[in-house]
């Protein structure tokens, strides 16, 4: 479907806009770009590569476990494999991938021309790339983290884990935390200050609500992990005793700090995925998502309650029952907002006119798997059940249903849904449907049997097992499923490459969807919107007045965007947007050398690099000569 939402490209003011925002292709602009769309695509591609490497880790593990007493890898190698698989999937794939989606889509969905802090955005990407590279290179060097993705002390403290493996973990995640934190702050400010005029809080797309909720969770949860990792590094390198009970430390402190971050992190991963499903369904059900206020409620309450459930990861640590009960209550009742969303999506499908396209199939696959994962999640909220299956394969089955079923299925729905917008090309429908069925069947064949092997007593993280325990058929089945799943994911990648290379040109709005990203060209121009949209409803592309305003309004000239008020989206005035710059890249490079200096114990290098970062940041923050209008300090209609 094509709707007239853009002004004529031949208008002279539009040509001037093209000139103001154009980036000439070169190595310099490749390194210095601050365009949110390019940065978003980079996040997605880089996270996709990390996903592939961590997926290969998983395939090696499943092959090792396909039969009893197998000797494909050593126990030490297996420790590194499961640690890097978990760490990479959580920290280097899931969150950055959704940040990539958010980077590309949030400014478009709110009708902005870029993120609020474009240079910070570029800096965040380069830091993410550096952190991911350090961690994966350590794996190829045989020195990858090997204490599990949640790195419990005292196992991960000296003297039980000598070598650099856990230093890579602590420093790598601290380094990555810089990227995640500034990315989150950028999303919050973009969503609060850069929304198109008229987009009051009750007209904000659910994906944007989800990204804002996620970002608030990151801002509040990540400091706990950063603190824990800093303390772990100090314990390991400089002999402090934060986690050493023999010197007044507390080993449970690590678990508390880790899970204060770790449980919200489950929702940090899943919530953007929920937002994607809420974006996909309107296009394929021909109606808006049912119960919008309750969907907002669900996102907001999940974001808050997720901070009060962390102790359910510690139900086997011997804390007082009374303490458990507070967390058990929250862990049980957090299913209510999740359930509200499930019922709202079902109502949307029930009352809509369904078109079963590939993105829709993945969205439905998500609902099936996420409900199964949620069901076992409620079981874990019961202390007595949790204590029976702690550290068994039942846990592995549960969190893969939640994280793969709840995040990767929507992610794949999002890839197919927005691929026309990302690339300007349409994908092959048949290939997409084959990919869906292989992924769906492969996923369930891999992870459902783990419930059974877990209930039969198979502990997680064992590198092999003896025969005769009843685990053999379930493990073989899971391994066969893993290969089918891998084949499905390869088909997804093939479909994306095929679309980019040979796919037909995509129209602006191929699905007839309702949000503002579909009011731009596919792919969008560097300035996103020539006319800053005036929003009159929750579904601006379906709304006649909003469409007309975009087609006939005045072009906002120059390298500028519009600021609006936080709650009601009242126009406050234009602001000059920062030009591309090499400074974010230079700052991230300096930070990388700080990390490497600390890792190698070359503290002179760390200090030197820190000084270089300081100089770069000073240059970056040095106030440019701008008029109040250019800087966005002067507001429209206000006397100077």
């Amino acid at each position, binding site marked *: 479907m094509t709707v007239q939402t853009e002004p004529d490209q031949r208008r002279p003011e539009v040509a001037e806009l093209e000139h103001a925002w154009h980036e000439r292709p070169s190595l310099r602009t490749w390194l210095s770009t601050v365009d949110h769309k390019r940065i978003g695509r980079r996040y997605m591609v880089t996270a996709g590569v990390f996903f592939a490497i961590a997926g290969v880790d998983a395939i090696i593990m499943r092959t090792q476990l396909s039969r009893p007493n197998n000797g494909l890898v050593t126990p030490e190698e297996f420790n590194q494999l499961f640690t890097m698989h978990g760490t990479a999937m959580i920290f280097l794939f899931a969150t950055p991938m959704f940040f990539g989606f958010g980077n590309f889509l949030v400014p478009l969905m709110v009708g902005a021309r870029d993120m609020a802090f474009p240079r910070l955005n570029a800096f965040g990407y380069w830091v993410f790339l550096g952190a991911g590279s350090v961690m994966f290179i350590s794996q190829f060097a045989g020195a990858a983290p090997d204490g599990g993705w949640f790195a419990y002390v005292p196992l991960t403290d000296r003297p039980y884990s000598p070598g650099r493996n856990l230093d890579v973990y602590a420093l790598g995640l601290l380094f990555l935390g810089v990227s995640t934190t500034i990315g989150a702050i950028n999303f919050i400010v973009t969503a609060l200050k850069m929304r198109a005029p008229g987009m009051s*809080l009750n007209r904000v797309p659910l994906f944007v609500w989800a990204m804002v909720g996620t970002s608030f969770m990151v801002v509040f949860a990540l400091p706990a992990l950063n603190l824990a990792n800093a303390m772990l590094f100090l314990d390991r390198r400089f002999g402090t005793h934060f986690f050493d009970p023999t010197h007044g430390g507390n080993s449970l402190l690590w678990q508390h700090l880790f899970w204060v971050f770790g449980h919200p992190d489950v929702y940090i991963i899943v919530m953007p995925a929920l937002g994607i499903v809420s974006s996909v369904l309107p296009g394929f059900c021909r109606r808006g998502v049912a119960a919008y*206020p309750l969907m907002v409620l669900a996102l907001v*309450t999940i974001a*808050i309650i997720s901070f009060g459930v962390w102790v359910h990861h510690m139900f086997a640590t011997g804390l*007082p*029952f*009374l303490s458990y009960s507070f967390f058990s209550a929250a862990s049980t*009742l957090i299913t209510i*907002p999740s359930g509200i969303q499930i019922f709202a999506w079902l109502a949307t499908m029930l009352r809509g006119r369904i078109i079963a396209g590939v993105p829709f199939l993945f969205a439905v696959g998500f609902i099936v798997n996420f409900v199964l994962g949620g069901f076992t999640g409620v079981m874990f909220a019961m202390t007595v059940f949790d204590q029976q299956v702690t550290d068994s394969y039942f846990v592995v089955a549960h969190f893969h249903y939640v994280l793969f079923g709840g995040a990767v299925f929507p992610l794949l729905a999002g890839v197919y849904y927005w691929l026309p917008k990302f690339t300007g090309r349409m994908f092959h429908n048949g290939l997409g449907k084959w990919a869906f069925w292989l992924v769906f069947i492969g996923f369930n064949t891999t992870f459902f049997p783990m419930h059974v092997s877990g209930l039969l007593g198979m502990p997680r993280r064992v590198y092999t097992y003896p025969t005769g325990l009843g685990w053999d058929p379930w493990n073989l089945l899971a391994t066969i499923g893993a290969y089918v799943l891998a084949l499905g994911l390869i088909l997804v990648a093939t479909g994306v490459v095929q679309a980019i290379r040979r796919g037909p040109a995509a129209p602006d709005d191929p699905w007839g969807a309702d949000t503002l990203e579909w009011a731009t060209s596919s792919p969008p121009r560097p300035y996103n919107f020539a006319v800053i949209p005036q929003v009159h409803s929750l579904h601006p592309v379906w709304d006649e007045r909003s469409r007309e305003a975009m087609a006939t309004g005045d072009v906002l000239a120059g390298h500028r965007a519009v600021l609006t008020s936080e709650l*009601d989206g009242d126009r406050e005035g234009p602001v000059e947007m920062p030009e591309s710059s090499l400074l974010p890249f230079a700052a991230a490079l300096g930070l990388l050398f700080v990390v490497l200096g600390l890792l190698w114990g070359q503290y002179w290098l760390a200090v030197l690099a820190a000084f270089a970062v300081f100089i770069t940041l000073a240059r970056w923050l040095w106030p440019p000569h701008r008029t109040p209008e250019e800087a966005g300090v002067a507001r429209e209609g206000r006397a100077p």
Partner: protein
Amino acid sequence: MDPTETSPRARRVGGGLLWFAALGGALSWTVHLFVAWATDELACASGHTTLAGFPVKGVVTIGVVLPALVAAAALATAWLAWRRTSAAAGEDDPRMGRAALLAVVGLAANTLFLAIIIAGGVSLLVFSACQR
């Protein structure tokens, strides 16, 4: 001044009440969790059964009851806000629409947070403070 216009003070109070209606339950649950859980876990870990002369269970009970009352007050405020804003939400006024959204969110969220506080607090009837 137009008699139908609200004063700046009334607007501030109204805005504050609306935010209380939206977030009061969440804030009271947060306070409940940290007071009740932290008191119980830290006191029991250090072997204490009283805190400044009060029994640990009594402190935990206060950490349940007071937040529950605040959450109930937020729920009542959200109910009033919803009744006043829902009628005007259909008009093309972003402010009223946004206020109605916050009121509905508060109504449901406060109910949920009150339920969580009560569901956790019921265990006070079953367990002693440091029972493991």
